[in-house]
């Protein structure tokens, strides 16, 4: 019983973390048809800026609760900044190319950003554990969980709700759905597709950075974290179906629970199980669980 609860909780916590990363990735793909490898770098940039800002803030002796605002602020500012720079400066001139070429373009951006991060923050690890320990721990059925992790579940749930509400219940969201459905017709009907692209990319980048800055208190922030994360996010997004936010949620839950089951029962299979599940899902649903059907060219 204890094991089951631990497994479920760990799984859901891991899933919420995965969802925050994958949501941005799938949103960008859904609207722009770009599978953004640089998303891992957004994550890393968010983590670094969150960790260093919290460090500055706490060193100044301000009230510790403000550190959470710092995390949020760091994510929004750094994500938006990097997002705008990349979209306006580089991706804009690449639109209309093949999807696979776009993967390589974002791969190049990933390589560049990895070194930019090293130039700005150096190669030493950053720690910002204060926000993590500040919230304390809760005992649940005899197992102790960090409250910060539990809060992460609520953050992920609110992001999920906000995305759903924004896409389905606002005018801008409806326009965006039109772009997702058929870019050419949407442009033809007078929707400013270019503007939609910019806004979507910035939102996606901020989500990636947010995932990074929220994770920063729980890990040591060091070079290479982005490269590890992007591949996990791909697995999640592909399981759920590229471009679907609901799919990302399902994918995150499946991967999260499968991984935590593996960690508790058979730790050797931790990495294997994630891609094993992905392979299994793709074998039966080649386009992922929630993908929209596309017509074939004749």
């Amino acid at each position: 019983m204890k094991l089951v609860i631990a497994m479920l909780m760990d799984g859901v916590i891991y899933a919420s973390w995965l969802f925050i990363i994958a949501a941005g990735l799938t949103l960008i793909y859904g609207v722009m048809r770009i599978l953004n490898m640089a998303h891992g770098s957004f994550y890393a940039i968010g983590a670094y800026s969150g960790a260093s800002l919290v460090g500055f803030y706490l060193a100044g002796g301000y009230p510790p609760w403000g550190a959470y605002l710092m995390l949020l602020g760091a994510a929004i500012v750094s994500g938006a900044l990097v997002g705008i720079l990349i979209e306006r400066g580089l991706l804009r001139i690449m639109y209309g190319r093949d999807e696979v070429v776009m993967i390589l373009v974002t791969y190049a951006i990933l390589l560049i950003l990895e070194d930019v991060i090293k130039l700005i923050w150096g190669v030493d690890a950053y720690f910002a554990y204060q926000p993590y320990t500040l919230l304390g721990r809760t005992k649940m059925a005899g197992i102790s969980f960090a409250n910060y992790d539990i809060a992460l579940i609520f953050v992920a749930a609110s992001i999920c709700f906000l995305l759903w509400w924004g896409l389905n219940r606002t005018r801008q969201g409806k326009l965006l759905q039109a772009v997702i459905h058929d870019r050419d017709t949407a442009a033809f009907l007078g929707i400013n597709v270019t503007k939609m692209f910019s806004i979507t990319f910035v939102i996606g980048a901020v989500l990636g950075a947010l995932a990074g800055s929220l994770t920063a208190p729980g890990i040591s922030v060091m070079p290479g974290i982005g490269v590890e994360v992007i591949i996990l996010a791909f697995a999640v997004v592909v399981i759920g179906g590229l471009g679907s936010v609901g799919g990302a949620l399902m994918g995150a839950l499946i991967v999260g629970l499968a991984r935590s089951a593996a960690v508790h029962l058979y730790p050797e299979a931790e990495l294997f199980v994630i891609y094993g599940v992905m392979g299994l899902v793709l074998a039966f649903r080649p386009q992922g669980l929630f993908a929209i059907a596309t017509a074939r060219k004749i």
Partner: protein
Amino acid sequence: MRNSTLLVLGAGVAVMAAGMVMPGWLTFLLTLALAKGLVVMGLLLLMKAGLVSFGQGLYYCLGAYCVGVAGDYLETQNALFLMLIAVVVCVALAAVIGLLLCRYRDIFFAMFSMAFSMILYGVLVKSSAFGSSDGFNVKPPLLFGWTPTGEPGPLMAYGLAVTAVTVVGIFVWNYLRSPMGYAGEAVRENEIRVEYLGSSVRRIIYIKYLLAAAMAGLGGGITALAAGHIDPEMAYWTTSGEFVFIALMGGTGHVAGPVIGAVLFELIRTYAFQISPYTWQMILGIALLAIILYLPKGVWSLVERFTKEKTS
């Protein structure tokens, strides 16, 4: 055709002879580059059919581990025999995975092949028998009972790499001019029409996938012998990304593209690393962007442009 085959053979012999007088570091660099070129030649076959595999690292790594493990357990160090094992094992695995992968296109093919290479990575990282994430050292190889020691050691791997690239290069060149080779481009253009013409798209892709796996396994095996050390990083997605990078850099228009691309890639990386150890990735990234923007058909298109001007 006879002439061009002779030309390639001559070039192979010349490159091999040049190895005798080259400095050691260049021989080593070229060996690794040629091994990667082999992998990318396989990738070229797939890319001609419109399929980009982000998981050739799977066979690259598997080939290397086959050589390493077989060298340890079978008590044999015969380089050619080890290569054969690597290729056979890779083709056997590809025969199973290929059945599944043949159903996928575009981004899904890329992602799914990447997933398989990450599975191998995950397994290897956790298997302590093979040194987990550190990998292990490969015994120095023999060639027909001859043990190259000291100076000739790296030369043997170099010779193997040059021979393999020459033989495989001639094969791929001829293959691309066979009906099966042309079918690849037809598949990329329009699958349904290919089916109407009476060919099986699945079979075309399946065979290309097997060939690509064999070449990647060969490349991995040569890398293992040349470097003397293997680790799971060879199956990590960044390695596979490198192969796609090289393919794009060299261009997919000609068999020589991957080889030129691989040599160029290794040179850029070595020099970038030497000039600025902290920003070598950035230099690679910028080079990639520049190629996508200004040379979408790769470095080989420069050669083509040059020869066309000459003939016209």
